[in-house]
């Protein structure tokens, strides 16, 4: 069985004999177009570690507890074991393998120990010339914290390490113990079970007996982790699983029913990888159709757009229409120390889009709890540049919070990591309340009479300067919908003033525009406004007509907060740093989030549109 792993080609030959020898007639489509044979993909969901992963983690911990810098291989030949011992005792390793703030040393494992080959000595300037006459071994290690291979050449006679070499971007040989672990992770996953039609092999041995199995290479482009792709063929199902050996988890599964000749498919010409799999799933499920979410009295549709982020639409609360749609049109990023330097980034679908920053996973729905009780839920989408958190690569988070008491809050967060410490992020949120008959008011601290409650009518299109005054309840605006003299619903609009998590305040520009025809955001909006204006000219002002239109036939609220990043230790904001934690490097996130809370107000049977807090 283990021999099988060392000879993946043999396995492939066998499985190919099964899958490749179909009747020739099936290869001759009648019309030249053939019936499609679509691939199926699934991203791995959240699941707890399998027994095999827990056992492997325990081995790693035990190795570290023994003070070992590197997790060594066992059952080696005598010369290989000696070479491994010499390499692992070398002081450079202890110096170069860092320890995280949590006291856990970076995870480094020996992957292989092999006799040095003649070809390794061909270069006369090689420091390994002594190996021509004596036996030398090469010891390959993999540093999972930095995704690099370390290679030592050991002279067994002199018992010295002749050289160390670090290689980044190389796919190393996977040892038997990790091969078996990868297969086990795949076998025990719900996604592989589903691909097998629900009939999961009960054990590793059963899997091996019933499927043609091999271990192929793949890439995890986004995480930059070491990933492999166990492949299985059982009956007429061919499964390609992507396993992350750094995080010891399944990334996703792609499978197909073979035996049909289909047209050349985009997805299968490329080797399946973390990114291709993720993109395919997100495109199919979230870019080409709406998903309906019903929860805690709320009902809404959501989907990813080509350039306007995650859009929600048809939002209803307790059967009453609240919002036509909300979306994130653009991110403006400007750098104060460099005049005119910055970016206007759109976020949206991973392919066939005009997004500069794309989703790296599917939208997530999580519970919002207060005092241990579920009071709402959050719909969230994160977008990332491929090189995040590297310099000038960005991660943006878009969220919609809905509460069972009728509150809701659209928000946008930056998680760095920009091009410097002088960056200001300005997301452009477009919020379109449902229907007509809305009346908007702005708070003013200057009272004109004793009965003045401080809110003045906003009847026509206009923009509002940053960081306006708020009332005692934190509201800057009110919004009420009337029909036939009755107030149907109303909200106070409460901007961030530091009261929300991950927020130092919104410093928001706000724009109220009349609901307009196409071209003003009801459909996809291309890049809106300049990246680098520091005043109200963020783009929505161009939809304020001259003369300004009345807002009584429906309005759109544009909300443009401003978040200034900070890198000072302990004060990081809109930023991310890679940190060594539990043996591997992960980004430490310092999000800055902004967005208005819409707080429902009770209906009053007065002729006034004015409302008061519940």
């Amino acid at each position, binding site marked *: 069985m283990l021999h099988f792993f060392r000879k993946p080609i043999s396995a492939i030959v066998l499985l190919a004999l099964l899958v490749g020898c179909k009747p020739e007639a099936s290869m001759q489509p009648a019309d030249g177009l053939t019936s499609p044979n679509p691939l199926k993909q699934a991203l791995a969901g959240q699941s707890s570690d399998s027994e095999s992963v827990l056992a492997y983690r325990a081995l790693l911990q035990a190795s570290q507890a023994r003070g070992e810098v590197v997790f060594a291989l066992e059952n080696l030949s005598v010369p290989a074991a000696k070479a491994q011992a010499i390499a692992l005792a070398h002081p450079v390793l202890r110096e170069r393998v860092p320890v995280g703030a949590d006291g856990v040393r970076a995870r480094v494992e020996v992957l292989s120990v092999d006799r040095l080959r003649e070809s390794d000595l061909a270069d006369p300037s090689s420091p390994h010339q002594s190996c021509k006459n004596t036996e030398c071994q090469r010891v390959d290690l993999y540093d999972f914290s930095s995704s690099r291979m370390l290679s030592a050449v050991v002279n067994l006679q002199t018992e010295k390490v002749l050289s160390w070499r670090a290689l980044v971007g190389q796919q190393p040989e996977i040892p038997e113990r990790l091969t078996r672990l990868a297969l086990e992770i795949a076998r025990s996953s719900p996604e592989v079970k589903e691909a097998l039609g629900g009939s999961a092999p009960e054990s590793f041995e059963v899997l091996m007996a019933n499927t043609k199995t091999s271990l192929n290479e793949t890439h995890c482009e986004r995480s930059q982790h070491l990933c492999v792709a166990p492949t299985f063929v059982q009956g007429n199902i061919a499964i390609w699983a992507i396993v992350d050996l750094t995080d010891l988890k399944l990334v996703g599964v792609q499978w197909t029913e073979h035996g049909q000749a289909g047209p050349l498919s985009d997805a299968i010409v490329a080797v399946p990888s973390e990114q291709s799999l993720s993109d395919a799933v997100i495109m199919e499920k979230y870019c080409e159709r709406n998903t309906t979410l019903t929860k805690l009295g709320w009902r809404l549709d959501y989907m990813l757009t080509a350039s306007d982020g995650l859009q929600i639409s048809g939002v209803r609360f307790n059967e009453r229409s609240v919002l036509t749609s909300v979306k994130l049109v653009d991110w403006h990023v400007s750098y104060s120390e460099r005049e005119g330097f910055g970016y206007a980034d759109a976020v949206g679908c991973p392919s066939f889009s005009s997004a500069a920053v794309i989703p790296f996973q599917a939208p997530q729905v999580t519970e919002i709890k207060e005092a241990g009780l579920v009071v709402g839920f959050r719909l969230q989408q994160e977008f990332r*540049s491929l090189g995040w958190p590297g310099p000038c690569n960005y991660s943006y988070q878009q969220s919609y919070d809905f509460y069972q008491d009728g509150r809701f809050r659209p928000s946008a967060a930056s998680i760095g990591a920009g091009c410097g410490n002088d960056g200001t992020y300005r997301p452009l949120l477009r919020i379109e309340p449902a229907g007509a008959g809305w009346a908007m008011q702005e708070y003013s601290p200057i009272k004109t009479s004793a009965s003045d409650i401080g809110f003045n009518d906003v009847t026509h299109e206009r923009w509002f300067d940053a960081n306006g005054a708020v009332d005692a309840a934190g509201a800057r605006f009110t919004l009420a919908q009337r029909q036939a003299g009755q107030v149907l619903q109303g909200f106070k609009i409460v901007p961030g003033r530091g009261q929300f998590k991950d927020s130092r305040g919104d410093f928001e520009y706000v724009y109220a525009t009349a609901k307009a025809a196409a071209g003003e955001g009801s459909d996809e909006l291309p890049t809106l406004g300049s990246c680098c204006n520091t005043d109200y000219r963020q783009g929505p002002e161009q939809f304020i007509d001259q003369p300004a239109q009345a807002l009584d036939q429906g309005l759109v609220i544009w909300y443009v907060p401003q978040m200034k990043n900070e890198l000072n230790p302990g004060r990081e904001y809109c930023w991310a740093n890679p940190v060594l934690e539990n043996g591997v490097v992960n980004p430490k996130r310092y999000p800055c989030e902004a967005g208005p809370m819409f707080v429902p107000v009770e209906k009053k049977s007065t002729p006034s549109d004015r409302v008061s807090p519940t």
Partner: protein
Amino acid sequence: MSKNRARARVELQKTVTLEAQKLSATIKPNAQPKRTEKRITKRITVAVLLSALLGLGASVAFWTSKRSPSEPAFILQGPLSARNGCRRPPTFFNGLGFGRGVSLSTAERDLIGIAAVEFDSNTKKRIRYWQHPSWSKFGQLSAFTLDRQGDLYVIPAPRVNLADNPPALQNRLYRIDASTGEMQLALAFPVAAAANARNPYAGMALSYDCNTHSLWLSSVAGSEPSRERGKILRIQLQPSIAVQDQLDDFDGFGIAAFSAGSTLQAGADKANQQGLLIASARHGSVLLQAMNKDGSLQGRPLTMLSIAGLGPLGNDRVRKIDIGSQGELLLHGTPFNFNLAQPSAQHAAVKYRFAWDSVTRQYQFVDWQQ
């Protein structure tokens, strides 16, 4: 031994496509494809059968089925030679005071359009640049090529956002006059549908063909996730600039005209092959497209090789194809997913080398470099 495992596997995959093509190319008109022909070696068997697992087996059937009985087979008789060696620099450079290190660039982050740039050879920092006033008027630009008269042709493509590149204006070819340096619209090329927010691209690559004094342009305008609607265009430059031939429903990226057999293998029995190398914008494949002596296209393209699985990401597309003096291929890879995400600085452009193997009479992967 295992250090070469990745390469071996990938080479196996490359062989899949080459052999798949060879198989389909040797099928007689109206004949059933015989995948079990005795001449198929064990290696080929492994490759073809592996392809079944990867889905590439389908490609055998696909290309076979796409071939009409009248289409000739296309088997390379030798290494390829480029057909752009006659290009000349423009004369407008004279008198601008640039040193020998001057070059043209559409990739300067702080400049819109195209610019003549000069870099310090030690610090690699830009020390000078020059733009004709017309060079920044048409938004961000991407691929460009010179012709034998020194005229420069360039196409637009959005970068990061659409602020400077309205989708409706992306199907444009611009010409920069060799002597005056002035840039003007040369052609609004045909598209299946205009670029839009869901596919903001039109022109992808451009190359010059000395033999026919024409340009080859690949476009993906109008393509959708499930439908390729791009075009490969041959654009004549004289007597007027106009589209003379086109291949529809193909999303191409890097493109280069070639000759084979005649230049490097004089006296070969099947000399004077000519065609196009066209990279796919949708995956890592490079395809062969046969053409007649007059530059007209012949049949449909056939898969020749692939960079899928190679390089640091394993998922690049070939954006540019250079054919070296010895027929070696240098393929410039980049991530591309029909969006405006930019390759990160950590993923600098990757070059993939393929060399002609006179024994197997195929191109074989050599290495990749960053």
